[in-house]
């Protein structure tokens, strides 16, 4: 925040109060629920796939690849920010007149059926060029921070709680939004002296 207040832009002027507030609002809006829903998607996948969870516990070095593949497979942020066509164009045979708003689906791109192997999860996939953080000049600027947060949480969680499962009787409900998340994911795990 100090940097925003003191930095020079456009050859010497300071950011206006409105610009600073809008940058901070974007930081908050873009950086908060995106990471939490990504964690919800990943932890839910690990609950549903004990062999993946066990791989993470037995081989912590596999974590980076697991995160990338599940970001691709789950695509927690399903759509990129809307773009507006600056000229008449066409995408895969679909005409897009100038001025049209286009909402690209990152989830569809990540599961592109023309890409071999895209329809299966491969936690040791070599090609990690997914578009979970978008692409082009407006790609997610927070991707580096998001990856760090995901790694820290998953590493520390599994170091302390390597085995866990969904609480009995719970049905996972996804939020109906372009941000795929789970409002409540109650987990249980065994501790010395009984169940918690």
């Amino acid at each position: 925040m100090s940097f925003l207040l003191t930095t020079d832009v456009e050859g010497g002027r300071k950011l206006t109060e409105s610009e600073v507030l809008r940058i901070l609002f974007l930081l908050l809006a873009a950086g908060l629920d995106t990471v939490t829903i990504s964690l919800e998607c990943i932890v839910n996948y690990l609950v549903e796939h004990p062999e993946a969870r066990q791989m993470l516990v037995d081989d912590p070095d596999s974590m980076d690849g697991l995160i990338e593949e599940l970001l691709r497979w789950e695509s927690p942020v399903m759509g990129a920010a809307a773009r507006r066509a600056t000229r008449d164009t066409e995408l895969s045979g679909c005409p897009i007149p100038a001025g049209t708003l286009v909402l690209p689906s990152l989830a569809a791109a990540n599961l592109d059926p023309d890409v071999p192997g895209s329809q299966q999860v491969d936690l040791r996939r070599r090609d990690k060029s997914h578009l979970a953080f978008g692409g082009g000049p407006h790609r997610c600027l927070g991707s580096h921070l998001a990856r760090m947060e995901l790694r820290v949480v998953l590493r520390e969680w599994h170091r302390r709680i390597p085995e866990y499962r969904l609480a009995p009787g719970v049905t996972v409900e996804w939020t109906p939004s372009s941000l795929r998340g789970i409002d409540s994911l109650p987990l249980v795990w065994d501790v010395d002296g009984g169940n918690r």
Partner: protein
Amino acid sequence: VRVAIDPGRCQGHGRCYELAPEVFTDDDSGYGTVLEPEVPAEHAAQTREAQNVCPERAISIAD
């Protein structure tokens, strides 16, 4: 092998210099740059992997 990053395509995802810090690094704005275009054989595999993970397909390799 020889490696190059197309600065017109690179958007600073940072995947290359995280994966192969012996070959790539970041510039002041976070964009990927090549440390030494001529990559020794022991780093060739990493370099190809970095090419694979680049979402912008900005990395080119010549044998």
